[in-house]
Structure formats: structure tokens, C-alpha cells
């Protein structure tokens, strides 16, 4: 019985872990680049698609595609220019990163100091899960003597209690 319940607990962790994995891989898959548009059909939408993933230093916390300052307009014009020259999304981003640093990207590259950003939450999660399992087992193991027979807390309502009772027999 106990083995079984522990299995259930493990199952819940696995569900969480699998969800995390699926989400991360699907995000990674979704990010494979789109082919660069040909010279003649660069639209505002093409520019915005790239600008959405960038920040210009003038606009604090506002993506480049939404920021309306003159500096940001110039950046967007430049993106449009580079697209019409046939440059790819990655080339354009690399150009801006080389000039202004990684801060122009909404999603910092997972390298160097920014790697920590991705690693920390995952490390936190792993440490947390280990701690949680340890805590659960400890709470479970403590006083393996007869469990304190506390009745299920009454809800203070006879109807609810009867409903609960009915549900048990359900």
C-alpha cells in the first residue's frame, strides 16, 4: 500500500517533469527560423516579427515593435533595410548584438553570464524536488507508531458532512 502511494507521488513529479520537458522542447522547435523574405516583399510585418524579439535601449521594458521613440523607428527602418538586402533574421540580430550588446535581445542567449538565468530555475527546481521528497518521507516516517486518530475535520455544517458521508459510500 505504502509502496503504491509513493509510486503515485513519484507519478505526480514525473507529470510535472514531462510537462516541463515537452514545453521546453516545443518552444525550442517553434523557434527554428523562417526563411528570409526576398528583396521586393519586405513588409512592416516582417520587420515587426524580428523587432518583437528585441528591445532598443531607449525604451525600458517595451519591445522594439511597440516602442514609438525616434531611435526605435530608426532601428526598425534598419531592420527593414537589412531584410531587403537579403539578410537573415539571425544575421540581423547578430549585427545588433555586436553593436549594442546582448541587452537588445528579449531572450538572452544561453551562454556566459546569461546561462545562469536558465540554469538557476532548473537547479532550483531540482533542489526543491529533492528537498520536497526528503520532507515528505520524513513527515511520513516520523512517529511510525500508531497514527493520531484525528477524525476528519468537520466542516461545521451538517449538510456538508452528510454530503461527504454520501460521497464516501458513493
Amino acid at each position, binding site marked *: 500500500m505504502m509502496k503504491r502511494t509513493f509510486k503515485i507521488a513519484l507519478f505526480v513529479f514525473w*507529470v510535472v517533469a514531462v510537462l516541463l520537458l*515537452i514545453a521546453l522542447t516545443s518552444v525550442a522547435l517553434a523557434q527554428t527560423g523562417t526563411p528570409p523574405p526576398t528583396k521586393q516583399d519586405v513588409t512592416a510585418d516582417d520587420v515587426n516579427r524580428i523587432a518583437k*524579439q528585441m528591445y532598443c535601449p531607449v525604451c525600458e521594458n517595451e519591445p522594439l515593435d511597440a516602442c*514609438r521613440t525616434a531611435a526605435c523607428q530608426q532601428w526598425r527602418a534598419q531592420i527593414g533595410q537589412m531584410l531587403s538586402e537579403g539578410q537573415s533574421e539571425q544575421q540581423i540580430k547578430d549585427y545588433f548584438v555586436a553593436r549594442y550588446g546582448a541587452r537588445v535581445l*528579449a531572450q538572452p542567449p544561453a551562454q556566459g553570464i546569461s546561462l545562469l538565468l536558465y540554469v538557476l530555475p532548473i537547479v532550483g527546481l531540482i533542489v526543491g524536488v529533492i528537498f520536497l521528497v526528503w520532507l515528505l518521507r520524513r513527515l511520513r516516517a516520523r*512517529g511510525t507508531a500508531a497514527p493520531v486518530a484525528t477524525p476528519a475535520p468537520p466542516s461545521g455544517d451538517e*449538510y456538508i458532512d452528510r*454530503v461527504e458521508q454520501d460521497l464516501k459510500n458513493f
Partner: protein
Amino acid sequence: MIVDLGLIALVIAALAAIYSFVMAILGGTQKRPAYIESARRAAVAVLPLLTLACLAIIVSNLTDNYSLEYTYRVSNSTTPTFLRITALWGGQNGSILFWNWLMSIYIFCVFVRPWKSNRDLLPWVIAVSIGTQAFFILLTIFFANPFARLFADAAGNISPSVFMPAGATLFRAADGQGLNPLLRHPGMIIHPPMLYLGFVGLVIPFAYAIAALIAKNKTNSWIIAMRRPTLVAWLFLSLGLLLGARWAYDVLGWGGYWGWDPVENSALLPWLTATAFLHSVIIQEKRGMFKILNMVLITLSFSWMILGTFVTRTGVISSVHSFARSSLGVPFLSFWAFSLVGAITLMAIRSDLLKSDNKLESFLSREAMFLLNSFVFLTIWFTVNVGTYYSMFSELLTGEKLTIGPPVYNQLVGPQVAALILLMGIAPLVAWHKSSPEALGKMIWKPAVLAVAVMVLLFVIGANPIFVAIGFGLVTFSLAITLTEYWRGMRARHKLSGENYFKAFTHLIARNRRRYGGYMIHLGVLVMGIGVIGSLNFQVQTQRSLAPGGQMQVGPYTITYERALTCDPSTGQMSADCAAWYIERGRDIAIVAGYMTIEKAGQAPVRVAPYREIFLNGTGELTPPGVLSTVGEDLYLLFLGEQSGFGTIKAYINPLIQFLWVGGIILVIGTLVAMWPTPTARRQTAALPERAVAVK
């Protein structure tokens, strides 16, 4: 004159708070009820005193008193009366005073009546809450005093000061600078007070928790006593977040409602731990378990509320360097560290008090589910913390500031929220003590099958990326279970008492508001989840420049651009059409509006005029959209401006976004249901005489 009165009231409020703090501690340590009573009365006196101080600022705004620096900054001769009042929280110093005033309302409500029970806790609840209040009043007086006046020295230099510098004369500006146009929108007038009310309210549960530790109170009475104030604070915090999201959607013009911006995050962080606390404390109340966890959760909520206030009030987050410039930095961070270290030390000293009364009987029990729930809330909290404060640290370490945009948060937080939604479904079905997998399986197989069916269906019709299908599947699962819980309760009542289903429903809720109010909050969150997943993943965005009469197609909508209207009072470019735009606005903004018509097959055309509101003082602009809302989606149109006869229009389709707002309303109603005073007390007293008669 009125300014002097306000300043004096503020100083007396500080003295009253300090007096109350000292007397509460003396009364608590020396067991002197008279001292404690005196402390309680002094604590209650803070509200009227701060009210006087706030009124002084408002009167100064109303009477064009431009010798007061604060009035000079937030008001001017053309500011309407209503905005002169709300300008009380329109600038940094005034908003901190206002923040204090709101905190004193909570303190007043908690202490205004003499306590009949929990008298051992009283001195310490007073000490912690009024201590916090005293700190913030002193902060107002010494670092952010709204009563500073403008003085001109002998050389004619004008500077603000609370007291008249030697040889200076009072300076009265001809007119004020006026309220920041950003703060004139109704959303921005109502949103900060809600958020502040949520923030300051967290002092009450924290004070109770600390008091229970100091007074070595082993009972649950403090949990019961602080439950309602905590829910009030949580309600306002949630409302503040929701209204902030709505405001962003209505005026900021980027097609979204939540940008994971550090200011938003710093309000979300205490909400996360407070929500975990509200759940986890139920286990302490019913089973005497997880006492350390609850202390940790409420301490984190309180200290991150302090940190959040600091971040939102000083703008430190945009750059670490502004930290050095802000005089508020050191006191704020000291207080934050003190609350954190103090609470942890106290927990260590009283560790024997925090031992669990019961052991965990099974991993598959309500208790274990609650623990898992707190755990997930804490991992989300940790993740958002890393994201929010990481850019600050990266700047310190490397000299280069990093931007952490929404994609990063969505990837990291999304899966964790998915786990929470799963728990929201399963946990309420798991029995206390222990549950058998068979019993649980019996209750969840139907919703699980439904959820899997939804996932498969969505996957087949091509919902992409795959986690959209997973997300909707999980929401379906928990939604089905929550609705079934209502249904089972209603059916049971219907069978037992023969009430009709509507009566059974209302009675069910009335008889157990806490439980069914809680479920209603869950419903609200799940409905919001539908809106978030939909708007995040299926948003369509397109931008075109059109000549008058030109058309663009967005999804099923045809948009016809008519014309642009530019109004600029500073250049005198004010055609007859402009008058209508300035009815409720100051003259210090320029308007660039674009008139357009939306047509959809089978529907009457709708005319909208999205516009840009450009602040002439150069502090920024607002971009309110033109929106056509339907049940399924919003067509959200922005007018970006006109150039050589071409108007630029940006159009978004935000699918399912209505669910977000409706879910928010359900959440608020659910919270009201859960916290509404139960009529049990009244019912019992009313029933007593009958019973007495029966006994006779």
C-alpha cells in the same frame, strides 16, 4: 497654514505610532494590560492624524498652493478638481503618504474595538503592525516629505525644503507643472490604490504570525482571527494586478496586458507567496502541520511587499545606479533585511513551537497535495525572482545590463503554472489523512478522459505548438472537476431536502462559503487560463500604411482607413474637430487620431478612432486602441501616425481575451463569497432561546 497643519498631523502620527510601539512592547513584556490598552488607543489614533495630513495635501492642490513643492509638481491651474484630489497619489512623496494612510486604515479596523479573545497576542500584533507603520511614517517625514515648500535663497535659487532655510523667502510659483498625463487615465487612478491596499494589508497576517511566535501561542486562534483581513488584502492585491493588466491593455498599445516588466513582477511576487499561504494555512488550522512553511510563506509575502514598494516607488529596477541616487534605498533595504532576518531568527528561537502535531499519513493525501501546491508556488516565485532581479545582478557583475523579456518567462513559468492547474483539479478530490488510488481514480477518470479527448482533438485540428493542446486539456480537466464538485453538492442537497436546484446551489454556497467561494476562485483562475493561453498563442498581428479610403484585411475583418486628425495646442493646430478630444483632457497633450471603419460579413460596420496622446512636456505618450469586442475575440486597432498622406495602422486579433476579464470578475466574486462574514454567529444566537424553551 493648512500645510503646517498637515505637517504637524504627520509628525504627531509618527509620535503616536512610536508611542504605541513602545507601550505595546512594554505591556507585552511586563504583562501590563493598561500599557497594552494605551498602545491600542494610540495605534487607532494614527488613522485620523494621517487623514488630516492627506487632506492638507488635497486642500493645497485644490487651492492652487504652488509654494508647496508637491502641489507644484502634480497640479496646475487647468487640472480638474477630481484629478487634484487623486493627485494625492500622483507623485512619489504623496503616494508614500497615501500608502501610509491605507495601512493605518487596516490598523484602525483591527484595533478599533477592544479585543475579547487572543489577548496574549494583542501587544505583539500591535507592535509589529504599528512598528511597520512607524517606519513608513518616519520614511515619509525624513526622506519623502510631501510637505516640503519652495524657498528662494538670497541668490534667487529655488529649492524645496520642509523648514525655511536661513535667509530664504517662501517662493510661490505662478503655476504648477501638472499631473503626469500617464496618471490621468481612470485605470491609473484606481489601480495604484488597489495595489497599495493589497500590499499594506499583508502587514496584518504577518503581525499575527509573529505575535503567535513571540507569545508562544500554540492554538489556532490567530489563524482564524487573521483569515478575513488576509483575504481582504489578497482580494485587493488580485484586483490591483487585474486592473493593472486591464489598464495596460487599454492605453499602452502593444496588444497585450502583461509584459513581465519588473514593476509588474514585483507586485506579483508577494501575491504568489500570499496565495500559497492562504492555501497552506488551512492545513495548519485543521491538522496542525506545515507550521514552519506557513511562517516562511507569510514572511516572504511581507518582506517582498516591502521590496516591491521600494522597487515601484524608486525606479531602482531600471538601473542599479539609480539605487545610489535614491535616498530611500538604504532605509528600505535595511527594513527589508531586518524583517527577513528577524522573522527567521524568531522562528529558530521558537522552533519547538513549530513542530508538526501530526505526521503525514500518506503521500496521497490532501495534506501532501497542499504541500505540493506550496512547493509549485515557491518555484514560480523563485523563477520570477531570478528573472526580475537577474538583470540588476548582471549589471553589477559584468557592467552590462541584460533584458529578460516575456519569451523567457513564458518558457520558464508556463510549465509550472500547468502543474498548478493539474493540482487545482486533483487536490480537492484527495481525502484528508489518506486516499486510495482506486477512490481517486474513480473520481478523476471521467474528467481525465474528457481532458485527453480535448487534447487529442486540438492536436488533430492543428493547435500549435503542442503545449497549447496540453494547456487547454489541463484547464478542461480541472474545470470539469470543479464544476462536478458544485454539481455533487447541489444534487446531494436536492435529494436530502427536496430543494430545487437553484435553491440547492445558493444554500450550498451560503452554508460553506469558504469552500465554495474557494472553488469559485479556482473557476475564475481556470477561465482566465483559457484567455491567457488563447491570447498568447493565437494572437494575429499585422501592420499597413494606407491612403485615405484604402483597405486592409485582418482575419475576417475589413478595415477602411478614412482620415487622420492631428491636434496640437502648442502649435495652434486645432481644427474644429479637435474640441471634442479636449473635453476631459488638459491642454498639454497633442492628439493624433485615425478614423477608420471595421466591416465583417453579416454585421453592421463599426467606426472607431484609435489615437496617440503625446505629452507635450516630452514625458511620453499613450496609445489607446480602437477595439471591436466579440465573445470570441477582440479586434484591437492602433493608429501609429500619419506620414505623407498615409496612415499607419497596426491591427491585432486577440482571441479568447474576454475569458481573461470574465475570469477575473469570477475570481473577485469568489473571494467576496469566501470572506463574507458567515451568519453562523447570528444564527446560533437566534436559535438559542428556542432551544432553551425546548429544554424547559
